[in-house]
């Protein structure tokens, strides 16, 4: 478990983010900080603004005010594609894969590798062999066991499918992986498998933002917990020091930040 040090430069930070939808204020000047090599869980009640915050960080929604810094450098995302170009990958909860296509095809969907000789590059011929080999090494690196990269994704279990989606993000993410409820659609055993994947990605040094409703999952895998409430970050807590019930109390507003002992905050 990496020790989180306060002086390290955040990989990604956001200051004073505001987002309004008509007269509804979804985010009311929220801050955000992701440190190198950590799993940061973002939790919040329904309507707290956590999904809006995540959409802003992944480029799906543009903020009305505030700034986002990546490695200390200001960035402006107009689309998820912009965020992806900066090395930020998102894993969606609803298993965003093409079921009848192979694992290798899913891994490289939209980012296919092409053969480089003049004939092939003129006609845009795919380099299937290289994609198969690289897919194999990516899945092996995360210890996701599947029989063949030529297998259709629909022949896999739900956990393995999410594994393919996670491997796809991990293969292309250079900065950050955002996981939006990655275990919500999965059974208990498969959810545990995805948590294991999150740890492996973190241990390679890639920071992970995990959005989850599942408190046991959050406490099992997170290094820090960002609590969002009423469009603001109310606290960042250490799951090793705080109880699950205190966390939920802060999240729902039953307890204020200053009622918590100082050692649980980070």
């Amino acid at each position, binding site marked *: 478990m990496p020790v989180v040090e306060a002086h390290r430069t955040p990989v990604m930070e956001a200051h004073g983010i505001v987002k309004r939808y008509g007269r509804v204020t979804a985010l009311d000047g929220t801050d955000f900080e992701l440190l190198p090599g950590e799993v940061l869980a973002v939790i919040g009640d329904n309507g707290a603004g956590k999904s809006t915050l995540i959409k802003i960080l992944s480029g799906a929604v543009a903020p009305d005010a505030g700034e986002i810094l990546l490695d200390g450098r200001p960035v402006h995302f107009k689309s998820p594609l912009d965020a992806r170009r900066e090395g930020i990958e998102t894993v969606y909860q609803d298993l965003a894969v093409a079921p*009848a*296509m192979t694992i290798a095809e899913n891994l490289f969907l939209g980012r296919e590798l092409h053969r480089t000789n003049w004939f092939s590059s003129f006609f845009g011929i*795919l380099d*299937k062999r290289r994609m198969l080999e690289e897919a194999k090494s990516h899945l092996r690196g995360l210890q996701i066991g599947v029989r063949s990269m030529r297998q259709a994704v629909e022949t896999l279990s739900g956990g393995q499918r999410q594994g393919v989606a996670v491997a796809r993000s991990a293969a292309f993410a250079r900065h950050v992986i955002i996981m939006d409820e990655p275990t919500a659609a999965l059974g208990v055993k498969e959810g545990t498998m995805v948590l294991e994947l999150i740890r492996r990605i973190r241990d390679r040094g890639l920071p992970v933002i995990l959005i989850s409703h599942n408190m046991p999952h959050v406490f099992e895998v997170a290094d820090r917990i960002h609590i969002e409430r009423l469009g603001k970050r109310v606290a960042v807590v250490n799951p090793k020091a705080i109880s699950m019930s205190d966390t939920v109390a802060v999240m729902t507003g039953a307890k204020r930040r200053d009622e918590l002992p100082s050692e649980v905050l980070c």
Partner: protein
Amino acid sequence: MATTVMNPEDGERTASRSIIHRLLEHLPPPASIGPAVALAVTCAFFATQSPRFLDGRNFSLILQQVLEVGVIGIGQTLVILTSGIDLACGLVMAFGSIVMTKFAVNLGLNSYLAIACGLLVCAGFGYLNGALVTFVKLPPFIVTLGTLNIAYALTQIYSKSQTVSGLTNTLLYFGNTFRIGRTDVTYGTVLMLVLYLMTWLVLRDTAVGRHIYAIGNNPEATRLMGIPTQGLLRRVYTLAGLFYGIAGLLLVARTGVGDPQAGQTDNLDSITAVVLGGTSLFGGRGSLLGTLVGALIVGVIRNGLTLMGVSSVYQILITGILVILAVMTDQLSRRNKG
């Protein structure tokens, strides 16, 4: 936890244990073999029933008879792979062939220019379908039901329901033949086979081809991967329209006239070919070459029964049964995969 994540070495050992399994992975999946087997069985049956069936000239005839449905089937397959459907295809083809012939004969336009206009009109109809599906978000079934009627009406209005005859040699070019041994083969047949091969390679070996499959599989996931799905759909419908135009040119060359009553059953015939070829009507899975096999199955049954002197009604009956069997196979295989 270690038990929930499979060890990759275990997976490999299982794979190497069965060499047969590995070989099977390199073979095409059963869904794409099925239609070819069905075609072979049908041919074998008719070969025992009629001495005239196994003859180069007879095969050349069968190929000519499936020409229009075959080329329309390429466009139809592309559309169905994206989980759409095109009901307008046959009547768009008819309109295109009327435009070509009337522009050349009545307006005295250069034949190549007339052909280009006909192809352009068909591609335009395709674009209209694609635009209504993507911009207005209407279901493809409804959109093409509408354009089917529009294309039919325009054909009748423009041709005054009169057949166009007295065509130029250029318009009839693809009806010309060359000899292989004792068999006459039309250039139209060659064009159809070339179009199949080219489109099949694009679908199989290029990114655009794989994206067409991906849209049919999961449009939202495809969009999230940064693929411009709406633009790609418009391109697919437009390209399909172009194929209907080419089918119109082949129709003109085969029949020697511009026929305003043509193409009225080609929508269902092409969908039949696609389904018999093992492509799923739900999109995202199937093979283009299957469509050619599907069209040939219908053509062979029709030809064989005619040689046997059986009424053509039985051909329709058998086709109907085959379609239901093909869709059942598709459904059952999907259900097994959960």
